């Protein structure tokens, strides 16, 4: 594994740290099994990509991508709160609907720029010539790309960790955490749990879409398939983080989740560059299978270890 490859993996890991923080809000804080993530990640990428494609400032594009995710999350929340559709089902409905919308968004750029006569959907959008938020700091030959990207993404992660920290300790933040753990208590204390759930889902998916926005800028293109397994990666990161750094303090848990996301990426990078695995024919096409196995391990191992140490203690 080369140094550049290692840094690249950490960079991607940091992007998924944002995603994992989003998933942490829905799954852990709100106790809302939310599959919207698989569509809000590419939604963020598609909206950001479209904006950059038509020449909008990449910073504004990034935040528009994030905002689109907020709307998607709020939609899922609305379906659940206002129409009483099951949480999981609400998120699946939004996810399926967004798939079409994402195809449309990815296809509309070339039409706006007059490159195609028809307004049709597309599974991808090339951004190789587009200006990204990284562009101003990049050397002409992209030789410092492996440094610039992880550092800037790290800045994003730090800023959003700080903001979330502040937010979760405000009155609304406490209300959100109470809503997730004990809805009856929350209601009896005057917390409008419905509105709080919608807000939380918006924040969660906003973070996930921000991840998508940054992701397409590191990849030189947006693609409909980048969202596949987002939720599983987010969950895996949370579980890895929680098992390696067990803590209850909210700020520390979020740091654990961030490290979990980076570690997860490193595991994957290791698995894909391992000579033995390469020899027996494991390649990038097996990524999702490796992810699935990792999640199962992360879910089961901590419990097994606890059992084992208990037995030895006796």
């Amino acid at each position, binding site marked *: 594994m080369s140094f550049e490859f290692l840094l690249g993996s950490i960079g991607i890991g940091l992007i998924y740290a944002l995603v994992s923080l989003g998933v942490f809000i829905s799954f852990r804080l709100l106790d809302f099994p939310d599959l919207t993530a698989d569509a809000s990640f590419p939604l963020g990428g598609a909206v950001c990509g479209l904006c950059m494609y038509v020449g909008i400032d990449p910073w504004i594009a990034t935040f528009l991508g994030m905002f689109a995710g907020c709307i998607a999350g709020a939609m899922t929340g609305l379906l659940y709160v206002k129409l009483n559709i099951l949480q999981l089902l609400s998120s699946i409905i939004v996810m399926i609907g967004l798939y079409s919308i994402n195809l449309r968004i990815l296809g509309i750029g070339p039409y706006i720029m007059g490159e195609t006569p028809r307004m049709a959907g597309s599974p991808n959008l090339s951004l190789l010539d587009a200006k990204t938020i990284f562009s101003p700091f990049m050397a002409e030959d992209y030789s410092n790309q492996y440094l610039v990207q992880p550092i800037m993404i790290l800045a994003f992660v730090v800023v959003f960790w700080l903001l979330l920290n*502040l*937010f979760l*300790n*405000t*009155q*609304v*933040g*406490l*209300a959100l*955490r*109470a809503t997730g*753990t*004990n809805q*009856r*208590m*929350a*209601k*009896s*204390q*005057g*917390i*409008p*749990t419905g509105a*709080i759930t919608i807000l939380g889902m918006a924040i969660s998916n906003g973070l996930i879409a921000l991840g998508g926005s940054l992701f397409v800028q590191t990849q030189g293109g947006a693609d409909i398939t980048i969202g596949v397994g987002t939720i599983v990666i987010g969950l895996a990161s949370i579980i890895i983080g929680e098992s390696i750094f067990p803590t*209850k303090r909210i700020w520390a848990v979020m740091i654990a989740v961030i490290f979990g996301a980076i570690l997860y990426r490193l595991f994957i990078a290791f698995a894909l560059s391992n000579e033995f695995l390469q020899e027996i024919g494991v390649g990038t096409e097996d990524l999702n299978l490796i992810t699935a196995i990792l999640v199962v391990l992360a879910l089961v191992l901590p419990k097994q270890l606890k059992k084992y140490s208990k037995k030895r203690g006796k």
Partner: protein
Amino acid sequence: MIKVGQLQLTFNQGTPIENHVLRGLNLNIKKGEFVTIIGSNGAGKSSLLNVISGDLIADSGHITINNKDVTRWPAWKRAGMVARVFQDPMVGTCENLTIEENLAIAYNRGNNFTLRPALNRRLRVLFKEKLATLNLGLENRLSDMMGLLSGGQRQAVSLLMSTLQPSKILLLDEHTAALDPKTAQFVLDLTNEIVQKNQLTTMMVTHSMKQALEYGTRTVMLHQGQVVLDVSGEQRDKLTVTDLLDMFEKTRGEKVTDDALLLG
């Protein structure tokens, strides 16, 4: 003052397990009254409290609190007027939040939740003072997770939380039933002390006839979703547990076999 009129509530309407819980229940409670509520299982005691708090919405009838019709209000909207302590100590407090965070939420009951920091030095001092009155040593454990406390401690904190903001009525739904006898007595005494000190209008559901007469200023017996006995003042002072039991049996038309009612 609380007015409850012609309250009707049916669970699972139109199904084989239909259950008509409240059948035109009427009850007026004056300011400062401490009402104890008794009745057999299924008499509608908890349902009545849940309808007043907004956890359940009545099929028909009306509930007014201080001349405000709240019949259709959701629970969170009524929280500014209604404080409550649940039977299950796990329900009244949030185990994943610290003690001070739980108190901070209760301190904001009935107000809008804003983007201001939920805790500050002034509040911590206040919470410390309040917790010290419980004599449980919790004033030194402000940043401990609520989940670390015992059921009795959590119930005591729940009680304290219900007094952090003024309310028009305090609802206690068998809030000592899940505790061991000694802790139950402690929480009950604490309840009495808090209610007296703050002059709270209170409704307390209990399974124990003894408690029903020993505490409070008025006792109401429910049967099949209606008030069948309502005593206060001198009449109530003269009443003994045996009298109450007789009336209880008369309304039910059968002998009481539940030891908890007799011995509780």
